[in-house]
């Protein structure tokens, strides 16, 4: 476990969903999740700005964003064209586009995980916890 609390960037245009994610994570029973610092961005552009300025461990990335598809950001991260401080953040696609071809496209773009909307609170927590622990494991190794 790193000394600092993990940082999560939530890229989501719907305010309702941002509120929801924050509320769910804040009430998680898993300390790592509960203690995570949640940053948010409602567009791709603001997400890029945030990533340039701050260190982020995990991105919860909506696909349908006002200024484009989340896939674009995922591919940029995979290609390393987005300046980030730490090792490349883990990207989890969180989207209501759940058809097989959508999932395929997300994985192709370099997303590390996939969470379908609508999700139960427990699913969100479990997904975040899994990816954070995998990451901290990598950090230690």
């Amino acid at each position, binding site marked *: 476990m790193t000394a600092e609390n993990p940082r999560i960037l939530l890229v989501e245009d*719907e305010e*309702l*969903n941002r*509120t*929801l994610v924050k*509320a*769910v994570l804040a*009430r998680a029973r898993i300390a790592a999740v509960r203690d995570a610092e949640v940053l948010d961005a409602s*567009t791709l552009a603001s997400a890029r700005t945030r990533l340039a300025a701050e260190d982020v461990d995990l991105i919860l990335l909506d696909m*349908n964003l*006002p*200024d*484009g598809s989340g896939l674009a950001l995922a591919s940029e991260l995979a290609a390393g064209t987005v300046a980030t401080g730490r090792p490349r953040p883990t990207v989890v696609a969180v*989207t*209501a*586009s*759940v*058809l097989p071809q*959508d999932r395929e496209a997300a994985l192709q773009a370099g997303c590390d995980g996939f969470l*379908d*909307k*609508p*999700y*139960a*609170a*427990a699913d*969100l927590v479990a997904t975040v916890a899994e990816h954070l622990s995998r990451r901290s494991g990598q950090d230690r190794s």
Partner: protein
Amino acid sequence: MRVDWSSLVLLAAEFTFAVLFLRALVGYLRRRDPLQRDVTLVFAPCTVLFCVDIARRINGDALPMWVNAVSLTVLLAQPYLTVRLAARLRAVPAWLQRAILVTLAAVAAWVAFAPRPLSPIQLFTAVTSFLIAELIAAALLFGKARTRTGANRARLMIAAGATAAFGLMIVLIGIAAVPGSSPVLDTANRVLALICGFGYLIAFVPPHWLRRAFSATAAQSVTERLLRAPAESAEQVWQIYADIMRVQTGADAVAVLMPRADGMLAPAAYAGPPTTAPDGLGFADVTALIRAGRPARLRDSDPALVAHFGDDLGDDFVTVLSMPVPPDAEGAVLLFNRHRSLFSDDDLRLLAALGGQAGVLAERQAVTAAQRRLAAELSTSVEALTRASQAKSSFLANMSHELRTPLNAIIGFSDLMRLEEPDGDRRRVPADWVDHIHTSGRHLLGLINDILDLAKVEAGRLELRLAPLRVDTAVSELLTGLAPLLSAKNLTVTTTLPEATALADRVRFRQIVENLLSNAIKFTDDGTISVSVAQAGDLVEVTVADTGVGIAEADRERVFEEFQQVGDPDRQRAGTGLGLALTKRLVEAHDGEISLISTPGEGSAFTVRLPAAPLLQLDQGPDAGARVLLIEDDPQSAELLSTQLVSAGYHVEVAGTGEAGLTAAGAHPPDAIVLDVALPGIDGFEVIRRLKADPRLAGIPVFFATIIDERQAGLALGADDYFVKPVDQAALLGALARKIAHRPVPRVLVVDHDDEIRKAIEDGLRAGGADVVACADGRDGLALSRESHFDLIVCDMQSPEVDGFSMLAAIEQDPATRHTPVLGLTAAAGVAREPGDAAPLVATAMAGGVVATAMAGGAGWEALAPLLGGSGTAMKDGSAKGGSGTAAKDTKETA
């Protein structure tokens, strides 16, 4: 040995002319064709001349005088015969023919027996007149040649040239006859004679190979042109063939006949001056013409042909050609000519044969073209289907996405709530979570409703309850409802709402305008929204304009597509993306249209055009005071429905069971019945069955309002409409208003001096649906009865001023009112008539010969009502049958 070339040339020329003459003669003897006879005659003089020449060579110059005279006369006849031939081929003025004949005959008479050698004057006159006549003939042939094409033209040209050469030859002979002329001239005229002979030979008796070359050229040209012409159907192919044949053969008219199923020949195409197309020609008759093998006068041929073509084309020549149509049919080509065609017969046969084949080729071409067109259409529709299928897939994907989005909030927040610590049987949760769930739920519901509506429209299952709708009122109601939204965004609304009535479904209309309004509100941050209504002819226009973000030109079609929110993605607004798509479909389902004008950055204006309501139905609300019987056991439903009905201006009577409803309807038939299905005792279906079985009640419109969705059953039993609860109030009221309005409203004149009784009668009649005019005085009553038409006059027989009997007499005498039934009211014997008295009165319908007894006063008068609407006719009929003027005799009891 020295060869006398000059003599050999002469011999060759003489031989050529002999051949020509013999061929022509044989041709004529074989076919007895007048044209062939004329051709033969043209060559006869030459032949005679050369016979004489040969005889002269054998006998020296010692020929008898008469031979010389005959040969000269025959020679002078030749130009005239040539002109005569030309006259068979084209129009030649009769005076010209006569002038030539007379001139040549005069010259012949003068010089034939003149002593030889002829005097220079005689020689000059003979040669000149011959030359002029020959040149005229040549010019006529040349003129004809110019109107023709191909081989015919060439052959006629050559014939004209040969004719001119013949004239020149005679000039040379004349010059040679002058003593002391050069012997070269003799040779020259013999060469000219040979040229002339060959010319005629080529023109009239072409060698086989030349003829075939002519035919082949003509046939090729026809076939080529036929195949090149763009034809889409067999009819067109034959029309083109007829046109080409007409040009190619120089015929005045060409008809192509094809065999019909019944063996008759029917014209497939006709080219030429307008004429009545023959309906069908006996194949045998045409075959007989074909067998004749030569042009015939139309008048001599098949009467059917004459009937169809003769009158229009004149007394003309018709050539009939058999035309084989592969595989085994046989048609015919008819060529009509005002004049004979000199050479065409040979070519024509080949042309007809080729025509059949070319026709089939071209028909195949047409079929191929049709197939190509079909293939293109098919691929277009396959493309369209593919596009539609792709659109469907993307619609489904979009729909899934759109549904999941609000569900995410609902499931997520409710999940969070479940995780909150319970406090007894409650949990403490943040209030805004509940709001989030509620909002998302509403959004989801809106989405599902939109999707269902779209699906309904797509499947054509959207049922519109079209009724005249005051668009201006509906729009202002909507604006009132949206006022909070408008003021929240600080938007100004301007309206132009003149009175306009569209034929529309109230609910759907509201949906359409609400979508446009909420769209305008959504995309306008500050500024003005203007709503205007206009009635333009048979259209009603509703325009919603905003000063919002506007829509780029490229997006103007796309805004009406599902799940498309266009414009700057940074400024996307919340919404299902279905609103405009649905709006467009709803408008189209009304047979209306929606259009959009927009300038990006300045605003958009959506205009909806819907059909206007027919003028007749303008402002047709429910009849004031119409009575509705509501048969409904559930008190809450009954109250809700009766409140709605009362507020719409109906008198409502409620019955709690089917039996009670039937009793109430029987006692006092209402204007309409609203009926539930689930009732204690007999159910609604049984109620309507009994209603429809009762002739007195069968005409009353019945509307089901029930929770049981058995529309088909209800309508099958005779219901006018079927509403499933929760009942669409507007739809029910609209249906009621339409049904009740369509019942004829009887006009009744009531004359009674007693104010209270008159009022009671009036009320009773009005409740029964009558239009009542009332007055107290008999004189006024008479005046009113003359001013306008009444279906019934009810009058008090004991009016103080004019008694009922004098009034009846007056009504009876006036032709305008003679046939109007009159119900006379009188107190029953022995019963005092007092205001409001419920005692029976005797009602006497005197004019109609019907005396009726009815209940008098108050509620009893309502018994009149059923007599006036549908069943009121019985009374009118009775009056009509009774005739006029007969005194009241029969007495009838009515309930």
